[in-house]
């Protein structure tokens, strides 16, 4: 799992993930999100590079969304592939974490 951060301005951070949100990848993603500075309350997770999402990945996204919400912030997702969308639908993640169509819509949704 490769992860990079990009400041989009106005306190919005885009976190781009590349790899699989399986057991190994989810551990890396969890550590990355947990290590974000508390100043980062509005986060966009770009999943364009994520080829697989298992329940451990859903767990990380829920945990991150809860943490950000507790700080008064928000997590928004963009670019999940079709298989990831099905996992999000089955678990209900898509009901509790917004999935925006693109980066601009995500910036609006997270603000």
């Amino acid at each position, binding site marked *: 799992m490769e992860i990079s951060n990009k400041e989009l301005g106005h306190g919005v951070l885009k976190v781009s993930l590349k790899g699989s949100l399986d057991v190994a990848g989810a551990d890396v993603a969890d550590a990355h999100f947990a290590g974000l500075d508390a100043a980062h309350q509005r986060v966009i997770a770009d999943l364009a590079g994520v080829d697989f999402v298992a329940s451990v990945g859903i*767990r990380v996204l*829920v945990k991150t969304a809860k943490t950000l919400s507790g700080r008064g912030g928000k997590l928004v997702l963009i670019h999940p592939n079709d298989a990831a969308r099905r996992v999000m639908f089955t678990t209900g993640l898509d009901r509790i974490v917004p999935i925006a169509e693109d980066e601009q819509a995500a910036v609006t949704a997270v603000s």
Partner: protein
Amino acid sequence: MGGATIRLENDLGEIERMNRWLAHVHAGTDEQFERIKLCLNEAVENTIRYGYPVGGLGYVDLSLDQGGPCITVVIRDDGKPYDPLARALPDPMRDLESATIGGFGILLMHEAATSLSYAYRAGMNVLTAEFCPRQAPK
């Protein structure tokens, strides 16, 4: 294709080797492959994480067979007897406040597989999953 097998140790790091094996075998259509991968990741993670005492050694055997359009995967492990299908399925999450972190693996297994069955035979948990195509071939 015929059958393919792999033996995994009860170490979570083995899931990466399992996924490489799956990618090499790549049975069925892309959508069948995605469903098999999801189901196996959930089932094997659950077995390795909860099926053995701390430090206890064990193994998980996987076999994959395609005799027709459907693919059958059998997961055998020598962990403690556990029927994952006897467990109540969680409801999908409805709001962030009440959402539980985790517990969705079994739900995803049911969603991914066409059918699931469990037996405990000769000291082994035996979980059989069938994956039939959901889309007509193009």
